[in-house]
């Protein structure tokens, strides 16, 4: 498996993530889209680390991304939960009080 293929996979993953973010109305699904993007980046990091850099900097970066994505997801889910508690829904369309 060469670098090119990995990059294509990562690009596809990125697009899927972006597509999910743009089309999904459920906040959790949107969050999953974000996770896809982050993982697309991770694939890149690891791939580049392996094929280009030959040092493990990229792989370390990927680990960091995974950790931070987890933290981010935790915070995001907590916020969604609170939103569910106050409004009874996690549809992002429902949240349009603030506008203009």
């Amino acid at each position, binding site marked *: 498996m060469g670098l090119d293929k990995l990059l294509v996979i990562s690009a596809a993953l990125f697009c899927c993530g972006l597509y999910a973010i743009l*089309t999904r109305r459920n906040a959790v699904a949107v969050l999953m889209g974000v996770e896809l993007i982050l993982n697309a980046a991770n694939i890149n990091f690891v791939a580049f680390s392996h094929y280009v850099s030959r040092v493990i900097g990229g792989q370390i970066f990927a680990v960091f991304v995974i950790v931070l994505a987890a933290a981010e997801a935790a915070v995001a889910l907590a916020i969604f939960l609170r939103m569910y508690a106050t409004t009874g829904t996690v549809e992002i369309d429902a949240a349009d009080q603030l506008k203009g």
Partner: protein
Amino acid sequence: MIRYAYIIPLLPLLAFFVNIAVGRRLPRKGDWVSIAAIGAGLAMSIAIFFEVFRIHDPNFKYHIVYPWLDIGGRFVVKAGILVDNLTAVMLVVVTGVSTLVHIFSVGYMHGDPRYSRFFAYLSVFSFSMLGLVLAESFFFIYIFWELVGVASYLLIGFWFEKKSAADACKKAFIVNRIGDFGFLIGFLILYSATGVLGYDEVFQGISEGKVAGTLLTLAGIGIFCGAIGKSAQFPLHVWLPDAMEGPTPVSALIHAATMVAAGVYLVGRVYPIFTPDAFLVIAYIGLLTLFISATIALASRDIKKVLAYSTCSQLGFMIMGLGVGGFTAGLLHLTTHAAFKACLFLGSGSVIHAVHSQDIFEMGGLWKKMKITAATFIIATLAIAGVPGFSGFYSKDMILAAALEFGMRHPQHMIIFVVTLFTAGMTAFYMFRLVILTFFGKPRDHHKYDHAHESPPNMSVPLVILAVLSFAFWFKAPLAEKGWFEVLVPKPASAVSASFAVPANAGLSAEAPAGAKGEHDLHLAHKAHTIAMYSSVGVAGLGILLAFGIYMLGWVDPDKVAAKFPRLHDFLVNKWYFDELYEATAVNGTKALSRALAWFDLHVVDGLVNLCAQVAVWVSFLAGKFDNAVVDGAVNGVATVTIESGSFFRRFQTGKLYHYVYILAGGVLIIYLVKAF
């Protein structure tokens, strides 16, 4: 004494300040301050006159010049006075009439609530008029020119509670300003060409050819425009009759004897700058004026209006005289006219004072009640009618002679003489009509007649003095070849060198200056003089006779004549409809323009950006915000555009998160596309 001539105007100025500040608290409300000032001026003027007379040099000139404005030597205006023979005469005329009017006013204005204010105004007028006479440069004559206008404004509007007076003073000032506009342009042309402002310096410049041809003609006509305004010449004559709303002494002083003559004086003063074309314009303007106003005077019922139109007409005589080359004649007529016209006006004042009416058809038979007034009035009328032996005859005859001489030289302009002669006859007619209706016949309004009385001495004495001055012998010893005026105020040499004149008009030059006349010229002049004298006596007699025939002996009933020519009569009574014409065109035109521009200012200029705004809003008509933006008006236009675009962008902020992310993605895309292409 000549050295101190500058004091003469300053005295009345001082009196003005005293009276305006503390006049009401002074004994006799300060009238004596003004009278003393002008009286002292008169004394000084007479002294100067005799000094000049003793020198008896036609070319006598005395300058005093001080630096006044100096812009690093790049622009210099000097203040100063010029005393020559003409000035000396004018000083006497102005201070003399002014003094008599001051004295007359003591009686006439007695008991007026603004008595001291009146004398203050008289003083400021005297100051300005004397300043005008003494000025030695275009700049200063312009200054005093405006100042006499203001004094006239203040005095016409003295009884400002009357709407007519308030209207009249405004009209007088604005109409004069129109003339002044021309004056200003005229002297600007001269200044920009010669770079100097003093009369002599400018003449020098012109004779050096610094300005010539059409431009010089225009300059001359421009300056003459000032005279048209101030001397109530056609087409700016409309203010003068209205100006009779002022107190009668004012009419005598300003609107008969002095200020209105300033135009004539101006033309005389700057005589050397006029090109032949300019002279022709002057002559014809004068001609039109003298004829038009005389016809209007024929039909007028108001004693002061008749006199006003006669003044207009006489000023026309002078202007025309100057225009045809009768320099001395015009100015002499100015001098003689000052005396007899002041006398007439003061006399009318005396009459009005007595009967409290200005309508001559409500008078009649006043001869019995007010003998002094009547006698002096008749003397002055004889003078204005041009009866031999009186001053008016002497001067008017000279004007006629000049016109005839001009006509003989240039037969195509013979009409000037013909019309003038005819008008001289009309003058005699309407003046005697006035005299007869006022003083003779039966009283037509007995109530008014019964209350009539002779005026107090302080009013009648000035009348007498002025009447005495209306005789010819003051100006020319009987049978003398030439009067002193003719000797002392000869025609100045034209600065317009023939070589710079427009060749086409070279043949039309005015008569050559005195002393340079050839044999042929002398002969021509003599011949013209003889014809003019006889014909003028003839028409005067005819006019007087006709007046007596119609208004005393009842040969023809004037009302029937009027009824026979109703259109003509209406035309004359309505003063040729000049007021209506001006009202409809100039006045309403300006007002309409000003309103239009104000509207333009408020709605277009202020809304200019608004306009762009509206266009922008049209584009976004979908939003249906059009009304708001239009109603909003004003410069808010910018604001409108701004706010509208704000709303536009604001609509993106829907509150919906995925819209936001779309925009984010779109942003990246756009940035990327920028690169890609």
